[in-house]
């Protein structure tokens, strides 16, 4: 099976950009990395951008007058601009650097939630949420006595939009949902969903951890109020993520963490918060990581998000076909046309842990477990599933290796 696809992406060329992809898991067993939904690999360009920062410009940012401090401030703020451009946010003040998607969502829960909600208010979530878009709301609900509602998921892995309409009758103050499921692969019809939420006056938060890396995303066009994502899933470094927010909401929100950078003026017993976006960035930020994040965005834009999306569609379609030919194997979620490159499945009478471990022995790295979406697994009555997830550097050959590996699992357990 040729690895060359007809999507315009030269995958063999792309693969050369990622040092880890030439690694052998053990002697003679090359790595087949199919765990990008957990975290993506990083191209050399991203590592070099961070190295250059540390070797040439490293300093603490803002307020510094010396050359390095000015350079560091410049590269940090330039990275912010790049990311703002990548998601088509209207202004740099609306892009706050966080540690990851999880912190971004918690920021909204703590700062927006605690100051805009009151006992009895409804928050609308979905049954397909990642723990990171569940637990912050559970904590808030427990503290403030809020009601959590959930848009159900069909057996096929699609949001039940009729139920959604009914739940809107509870007048939720917030709708928080994922753009793309990290288990089912489902890409939710976000624009319509957000529109309907707005029409009942709900504020909307989108968990974009799985979408921003894989699809062209335009937050302005989607009219999302908050949009959260992580660099490490989109070719960027660990330790940094971002929260986009609607300007008037961000302006009215009180600070989240207190400390350096987020202040304008401090007295012993009071302070004046800084302007956006610094108001929400307390302490020395992840400067080198911002630089790496910016380089990741440059890298993705250089290749073209549409090409990346097409390439992943091709891989997904092919993998779905092949997987569905395997007896006793069930794939979760909707058909290939409606999903991104995340494929969770289970094999009759074989535990996903055993699947993952035997696959690892032939070099194929997939994940087994509940993928931080335990309620979804509970709903489907599955303690765990196996999950293969794909990205721009994966090939059709690698899908074949996955299929061969699964065959081997079945042989062992025959």
């Amino acid at each position, binding site marked *: 099976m040729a690895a060359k696809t007809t999507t315009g992406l030269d995958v063999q060329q792309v693969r050369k950009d990622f040092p880890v992809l030439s690694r052998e898991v053990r002697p003679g067993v090359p790595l087949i990395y199919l765990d990008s939904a957990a975290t993506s690999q990083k191209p050399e360009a991203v590592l070099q951008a961070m190295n250059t920062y540390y070797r040439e410009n490293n300093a603490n940012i803002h307020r510094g007058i010396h050359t390095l401090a000015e350079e560091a401030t410049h590269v940090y703020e330039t990275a912010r601009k790049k990311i703002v451009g990548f998601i088509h946010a209207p202004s740099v003040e609306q892009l706050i650097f966080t540690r990851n998607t999880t912190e971004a969502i918690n920021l909204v829960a703590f700062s927006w939630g605690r100051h805009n909600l009151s006992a009895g208010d409804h928050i609308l979530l979905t049954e397909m949420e990642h723990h990171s878009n569940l637990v912050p709301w559970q904590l808030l609900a427990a503290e403030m006595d809020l009601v959590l509602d959930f848009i159900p998921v069909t057996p096929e892995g699609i949001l039940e939009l009729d139920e959604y309409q009914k739940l809107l009758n509870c007048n939720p103050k917030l709708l928080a949902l994922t753009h793309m499921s990290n288990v089912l692969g489902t890409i939710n019809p976000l624009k319509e969903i957000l529109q309907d939420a707005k029409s009942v006056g709900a504020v909307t938060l989108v968990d974009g951890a799985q979408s921003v890396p894989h699809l062209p995303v335009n937050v302005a066009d989607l009219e999302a109020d908050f949009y959260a994502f992580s660099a490490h899933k989109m070719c960027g470094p660990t330790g940094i993520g971002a929260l986009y927010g609607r300007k008037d909401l961000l302006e009215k929100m009180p600070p989240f963490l207190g400390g350096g950078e987020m202040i304008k003026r401090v007295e012993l017993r009071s302070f004046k918060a800084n302007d956006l976006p610094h108001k929400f960035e307390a302490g020395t930020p992840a400067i080198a990581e911002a630089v790496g994040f910016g380089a990741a965005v440059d890298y993705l834009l250089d290749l073209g998000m549409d090409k990346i999306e097409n390439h992943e569609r091709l891989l997904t379609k092919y993998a779905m076909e092949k997987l569905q030919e395997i007896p006793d194997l069930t794939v979760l979620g909707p058909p290939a046309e409606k999903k991104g490159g995340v494929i969770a499945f289970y094999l009759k009478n074989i*535990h*996903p842990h055993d699947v993952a471990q*035997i696959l690892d022995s032939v070099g194929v790295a997939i994940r087994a477990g509940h993928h931080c979406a335990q309620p979804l697994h509970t709903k489907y009555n599955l303690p765990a599933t196996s999950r293969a997830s794909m990205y721009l550097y994966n090939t059709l050959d690698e899908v074949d290796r996955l299929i061969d590996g699964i065959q081997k699992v079945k042989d062992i357990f025959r």
Partner: protein
Amino acid sequence: MEDFYRELIIERYKTPHFRGELEPNDITFEDDNPACGDHIRIDVRVDENQVVTEAVFSGEGCAISLASADLLLESIIGKSIDVVKELTKEDILDMLGIELGPVRLKCALLSLKVLKSGVYGIGKTDSTE
């Protein structure tokens, strides 16, 4: 593959020798591994000298956790409870005859954790970790 899935493991997983439940029993305990949803219950009968006469397990899990439960119980029949108390992680790994990373180690040690919890009365045992 041979490294991880010795025939013994697959065989014990598919046709365990000590699967079941005992009512009444002298010792019973159950627990789970939240990381993967594995769940194991162990029932034990002892004689007047505190020597294990019967031991069975029930529950759900991966091949590693169920095979190690089966092998563990086989190893304690005829042993005194005091000997059971001395069992360690290494004993389990010796029985399985494979090396395991940290995640799978938890699978392999679940049955030992359950057994020890039963033997020591209730509670968590950290000594198996």
